[in-house]
């Protein structure tokens, strides 16, 4: 039997795991791996900062439904991945992070560029490995991909000491995987499903609350079928956007701090929440003791730890969203045919009325450039068919409010961690995974500066992502809080004149234009989409435009500050 190096075995195992692309950045202890990669047909995208690699792997995963892979060297390379790993962890995104480590015999001696990355990432990974014996390598790679992708997905980190990469192993060494302690439940308990249907049958005012878990299970179409069949209105979380079409009349959009008024009111008035793949984050529930006070809760989630974590649940169903929704739909049909369902029409009509009377609105004052208008135009021009990435801040909320997401995996946005600097590298990953799609990063002028070095990655690798900067010269979301709750004391949130974004993108070899007038918006977006290169459009928007409605942190979600 022929021997190959650990690094070659790694590449072989990655191929077997179906890896097509790695986002990474080299360094001392990963040179053996990069050397093996040199002979491989796995694509490698060289980023300019490891944080970019982790976010790109995340964006690739969110937009394709496959597992993303990033790689970095030991010490600073590995620690630079951390924000990206934490971000993927919070939103349950499957990525595998591969880091180099110092040689096994010097681990623990504070060797050059040594960092205890498995220790550091324990709280932000689904699982991690430090390989200490080359014979473990094949099974660890196999297990890592299995763990990242199955159950509740999440990031897995593999730390590989350099002597393992350089060591030798039989080419045909067969990995064994033994995961005694890991057996996710996919199928929902049939008795619980019967109970759930009974509860729905008795409810007068039900709502469905759908989140990222529906998307990741591939359950979007079953969800849509179930909602259509039952006519139950659907509220989504931020990461659930697109899992149920915003254009469907039953869709109430996003609830919570910057949710629609009608979704927040529906939550307040409902008597039954059918929650699927959501975790009742505080940005959704507001003051917990006031949240959906009169509602029973059916909670479907693949992670038992999510059920009952934040709110009391009447009918817990542990299982995969898609599988449980299909069973639920079947049982519902059966029950409806046999014994009928409580008349929910008055409620549905009431909710549809709320949708009309409490529609989102902004004051399109003549002479100003409003962010909501720009986003509406982006939607119109892309016909909702683009992959939209965002950074974090006001622009992110405007995007969630004014772009109509109609397909799963078309919004790539940092939900749980709220990571500024996520959107652009994530867009690179999304474009690599979906070369035929238009990929747009809707950015803030603050956030885009956090991973601006990746302009080089996009240009060098011919990844023609489009960036729409909603430039208000502020760390706008923080400024908005200061305006509302801190007496307009704009402490360190004015970033006006940071840089000429047009010149900056040009310096990197991309193209840029500036838009200050409403009349120029449409043409600028169209032109940006037509150019086969990195393009940045710098929209100078009304500087102190706010996101409405807004529920102050800690208030009940029906207590909204609204646009006047």
């Amino acid at each position: 039997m022929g021997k190959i190096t650990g690094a070659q075995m790694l590449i072989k195992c990655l191929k077997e795991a179906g890896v097509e692309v790695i986002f990474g950045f080299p360094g001392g202890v990963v040179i053996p791996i990069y050397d093996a990669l040199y002979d491989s047909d796995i694509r490698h995208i060289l980023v300019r900062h490891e944080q970019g690699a982790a976010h790109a792997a995340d964006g690739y995963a969110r937009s394709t439904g496959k597992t993303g892979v990033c790689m970095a060297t030991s010490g600073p390379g590995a620690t630079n991945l951390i924000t990206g790993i934490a971000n993927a962890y919070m939103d349950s995104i499957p990525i595998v992070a591969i880091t180099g480590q110092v040689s096994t015999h010097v681990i623990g001696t504070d060797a050059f560029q040594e960092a205890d990355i498995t220790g550091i990432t324990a709280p932000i990974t689904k699982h991690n490995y430090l390989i200490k014996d080359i014979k473990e390598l094949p099974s660890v790679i196999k297990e890592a991909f299995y763990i990242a992708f199955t159950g509740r997905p999440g990031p897995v980190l593999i730390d590989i000491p350099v002597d393992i990469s350089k060591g030798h192993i039989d080419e045909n060494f067969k990995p064994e995987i033994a995961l005694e302690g890991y057996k996710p439940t996919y199928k929902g308990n049939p008795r619980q499903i019967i109970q759930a249907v009974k509860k729905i049958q008795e409810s007068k005012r039900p709502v469905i609350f759908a989140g990222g878990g529906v998307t990741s299970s591939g359950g979007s179409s079953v969800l849509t079928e179930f909602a259509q069949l039952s006519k139950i209105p659907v509220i989504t979380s931020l990461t659930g956007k697109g899992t149920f079409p915003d254009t469907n009349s039953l869709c109430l959009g996003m609830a919570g701090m910057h949710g629609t008024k009608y979704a927040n009111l529906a939550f307040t008035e409902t008597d039954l929440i059918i929650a699927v793949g959501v975790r009742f984050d505080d940005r959704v529930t507001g003051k917990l003791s006031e949240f959906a006070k009169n509602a029973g809760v059916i909670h479907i989630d693949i992670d038992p730890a999510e059920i009952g974590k934040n709110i009391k649940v009447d009918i817990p169903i542990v299982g995969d969203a898609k599988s449980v929704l299909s069973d639920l739909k079947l049982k519902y049909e059966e029950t409806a045919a046999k014994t009928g369902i409580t008349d929910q029409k008055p409620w549905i009509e009431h909710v549809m009325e709320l949708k009309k009377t409490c529609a989102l609105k902004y004051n399109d004052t003549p002479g100003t450039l409003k962010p909501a208008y720009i986003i509406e135009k982006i939607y119109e021009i892309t016909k909702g068919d683009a992959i939209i990435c965002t950074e974090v801040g006001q622009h992110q909320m405007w995007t969630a409010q004014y772009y109509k997401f109609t397909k799963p995996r078309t919004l790539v946005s940092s939900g749980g961690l709220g990571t500024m600097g996520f959107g652009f590298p994530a867009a690179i990953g999304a474009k690599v995974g979906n070369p035929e799609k238009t990929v747009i990063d809707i950015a803030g002028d603050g956030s885009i500066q956090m991973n601006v070095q990746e302009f080089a990655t996009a240009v060098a690798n011919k990844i023609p992502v489009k960036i729409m900067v909603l430039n208000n010269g502020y760390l706008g979301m923080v400024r908005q809080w200061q305006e509302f709750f801190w007496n307009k004391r704009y402490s360190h949130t004015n970033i006006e004149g940071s840089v000429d974004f047009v010149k900056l993108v040009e310096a990197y070899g991309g193209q840029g234009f500036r838009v200050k007038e409403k009349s120029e918006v449409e043409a600028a977006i169209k032109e940006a989409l037509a150019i086969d290169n990195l393009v940045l459009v710098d929209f100078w928007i009304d500087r102190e435009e706010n996101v409405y409605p807004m529920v102050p942190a800690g208030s009940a979600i029906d207590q909204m500050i609204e646009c006047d």
Partner: protein
Amino acid sequence: MSSNHIISVLVENKSGVLAKIAGLFSRRGFNIESLAVGTTDDEKISRITLVVKAETHSIEQIVKQLHKLINVLKIQELDPSNIVERELVLIKVNSDNNTRAEILEIANIFRASIVDVAKKSLVIEITGTSRKVDGIEELLKPFGILELVRTGKIAITRGAKK
């Protein structure tokens, strides 16, 4: 109301597992009152016995979180009324010719053994429930306890059930 909970966890005997478990408790704001670790009859599997003070609702949540650790095989919250629990304690206590007899008497009553005798001290070994251990500690205090080491509680359920 918070009270003590005894949690028995079977884990794969691999490096880093204990750190992951201990880390999970501290991260979620729990203080571990005692912790005992050792291999089981299968050397690839270790048992970790933890005593944690917490409210029942929080314990449920932490047990669920523990289940999510890949190397965790089985978790049981032990019902105090249906277990045998033991702890081993070594106590080094001041003693001289005047007090030695009295200390030996106390040790005798508690069925503790004397494992080291020196001019100015005695080392007493005692196993038993936490209550028994607390009892002897209380009685020895007046003599002056120099050092005390507890293993932390271990427990096993009664009857044939595993």
